[in-house]
């Protein structure tokens, strides 16, 4: 019998597989399809202080082995998430959930996290710093070590739950951002968010995405993500959650060998609604194939 259990900041996961934010809604679309309690946990849709419709459509474009999305953080706002989405989720998911939070100012982040801190169902806060900083000239919080650190301290001061800072790969030195978050008190780091990308419709000569550019993800980005997880996990001492292009149990093992303590699965859930479940089910056989008795032991094996 192989052991798929891993620890993520004091909470034991039955396995390291975590559907990524924005690809799993608030869980119950998938709960209609399978028992989502088979997952380690999942990260719910990026939640903001107030409700957002998001970007105009088209928001989706196809790429070779991947996709671009420019959803623009459509969500009902943190109060509605707490009042409506979490109670619905409670009926179908009995494990701590990862709360993914976004904001456009430091106060936004703190406000949203403070409310979610009171929710028993929330196990971790995953703080996405890839949104533009409206008070800082529109540059994303995640592209400036100082701004990322500021968000980290603000969030840490309003919550006792473990804070995982989710980093954008669209930077020159992701290691510097990760270190800044760690120094500011982050309990963990997750990466990568989507890579900036674009497509043009040859028939019209216009960008496919209404917003011109969007976030590129899917199997095509796996090597880019793996490299970043490897470098960041070597540079920081807090746990790292790895993601980007993961679509099989082998990918999960590779991410963990690169240094991830747990692994998120994003776009794969969209093209195959059963992807995360299939990965969970395939893990034991894949572990046996590579002579792995316990997944916890392989974290950072490649270092």
């Amino acid at each position, binding site marked *: 019998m192989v052991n798929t259990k891993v620890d993520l900041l004091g909470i034991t996961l039955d396995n390291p597989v975590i559907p990524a934010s924005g690809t*799993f809604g608030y869980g119950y679309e998938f709960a209609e399809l399978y028992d989502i309690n088979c997952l380690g946990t999942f990260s719910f849709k990026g939640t903001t202080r107030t409700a957002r*419709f998001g970007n105009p459509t*088209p928001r989706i*474009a196809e790429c070779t082995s991947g996709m671009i999305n420019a959803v623009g953080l459509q969500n009902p706002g943190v109060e509605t998430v707490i009042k409506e989405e979490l109670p619905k989720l409670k009926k179908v998911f009995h494990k701590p959930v990862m709360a993914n939070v976004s904001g456009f100012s430091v106060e936004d982040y703190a406000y949203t996290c403070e409310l979610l801190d009171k929710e028993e169902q929330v196990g971790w806060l995953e703080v996405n710093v890839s949104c533009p900083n409206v008070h800082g000239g529109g540059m994303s919080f995640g592209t400036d070590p100082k701004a990322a650190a500021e968000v980290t301290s603000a969030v840490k001061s309003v919550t006792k739950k473990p804070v995982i800072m989710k980093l954008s790969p669209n930077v020159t030195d992701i290691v510097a951002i990760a270190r800044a978050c760690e120094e500011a008190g982050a309990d963990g780091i997750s990466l990568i968010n989507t890579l900036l990308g674009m497509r043009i419709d040859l028939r019209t000569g216009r960008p496919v995405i209404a917003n011109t550019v969007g976030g590129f993800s899917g199997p095509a980005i796996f090597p880019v993500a793996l490299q970043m997880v490897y470098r960041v996990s070597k540079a920081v001492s807090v746990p790292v959650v790895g993601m980007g292009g993961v679509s099989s149990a082998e990918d999960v093992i590779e991410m963990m060998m690169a240094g991830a303590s747990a692994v998120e699965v994003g776009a794969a859930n969209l093209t195959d609604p059963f992807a995360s479940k299939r990965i969970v089910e395939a893990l034991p056989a894949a572990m046996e194939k590579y002579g792995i008795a316990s997944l916890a032991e392989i974290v950072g094996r490649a270092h």
Partner: protein
Amino acid sequence: MKQSTLTIIENAPLAKNVFRMRLAGEAGENRPGQFVNIALPRLFLRRPISVCDYENGVLTLIYKTVGRGTGAMSLMPAGEKLDVLCGLGNGYDLGAAGQSPALIGGGVGVPPLYYLAKELIKKGKDVSVVLGFNSAEEVFYEEEFRALGCGVAVTTADGSHGVRGFVTNALPKNASYYYACGPMPMLKALASWELPGEMSFEERMGCGFGACMGCSMMTKNGAKRVCREGPVFKREELLW
């Protein structure tokens, strides 16, 4: 929703750049106005196609070849298997039809109306359909709708078949309700028709089952997902 492996039993041209594919297998429940989402080799995203008919376990789809996905579909031989998510979306509200519903379709918006017409006729309704195309070589299913017992009017933009012009030039009088599916300009033109009705929309989709928020549309009742609360929306919900 059901994920199924279906076998192609027929795949043949029907009109200019338009093909009909028939699939057999365990496709679950598929109502008029719902769609399926098809995984295709070497393409990342699935392709959404409306259910044109579903009878005796055979699913009929009619699609136009516009790009890589539908192009690849048109080359698939009978016997090939496809991974298909079935029974997606809300479907038409058959209960709203009244006695003499009008079904208005433009181009590849016509296919879902066939299944709808069939079910409405089973309920004893007097169904009239208006089918709009660009030209005679693109016309399909005129006879099939007649064979169901519908009153059929066809329009072509260039006048090469039926009434010259658009579907709005051939709308039936005294209809009790309407169901429409077609390109945006057609739906917009119909918005001014003083009749209760519902329309089917298209949007680029990431998942097709409500998980990604890729297909959202703003309505009078807030944001809706075309793939989940849609693709069919009541006329009075729509913002133009």
